[in-house]
């Protein structure tokens, strides 16, 4: 086990990984967010009753929906990019462009979803 990190948090935050690093971090946050949500959701629907109702109130809240839709959409689109690049390795030469395409798909789709969620939550 030769893994050792003699790196402070501030140094870690200054690491200039740029685009690919950002997608890596967001992919991880999205995966963790969905993992926790799905676990709680399955538990709550299995237990039911008051605890299930409380969990239901949390994930029907518009703030939570904006967060979880970010997790699901980003993880899905970024995961598709990773899958395509990994299964067709000669495309790795275009990986920077692939990330730009990914943002071009993600930003409009997510913006539209946020507008719809906010309209429903605030406008009724």
């Amino acid at each position, binding site marked *: 086990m030769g893994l050792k990190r003699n790196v402070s948090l501030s140094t870690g935050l200054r690491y200039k990984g740029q685009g690919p690093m950002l997608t890596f971090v967001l992919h991880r946050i999205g*995966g963790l967010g969905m993992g926790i949500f799905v*676990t709680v959701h399955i538990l709550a629907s*299995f237990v039911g009753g008051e605890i299930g109702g409380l969990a239901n109130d949390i994930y029907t809240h518009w703030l939570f929906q904006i967060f979880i839709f970010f997790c*699901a959409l980003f993880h899905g689109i970024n995961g*598709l990019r990773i*899958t395509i690049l990994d299964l067709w*390795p000669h495309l790795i*030469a275009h990986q920077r462009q692939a990330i730009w395409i990914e943002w071009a798909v993600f930003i409009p789709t997510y913006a539209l979803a946020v507008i*719809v969620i906010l309209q*429903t939550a605030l406008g009724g």
Partner: protein
Amino acid sequence: MKQKSLTFKERGFNFEMFMWIITRLTALGMYVLLLTAVIGALIMGARTQMNIADVIRWSFMPNPSHVQSTNVPDLAPWSTIFWRLVASTFIFVAVSHGVHGLVVIADDYIVSPRGRSTVRFFSIVMVIAMLVMGLYVLWTQ
């Protein structure tokens, strides 16, 4: 760019490698299941009886309780054996993909052999528990 390809034997095909490819294939599988649920919902009348949020909710888990609050008049076509099987496949694929993802994240922080085998033990417990609870909810409502 010159590429050097190795055979599976030279590359060392083991369980980690197997799970690596499974993670990619289950990702594609979940896209197929999502599209199946979207197309199914449109065939069953989602265009006039549901809004986009409800269609997304149904697509992520084609489970009849996810269409209860919509204007769909009859839940019978939404609770057939076919949709329960699609939902069961989805939960199996998603749980194995997700729990393996959690193990990958944990491996970045837990590096001792003992810690790693503990993580793997709990990951197996988690997969079984999630599948048992999820399938129970799907098939008993």
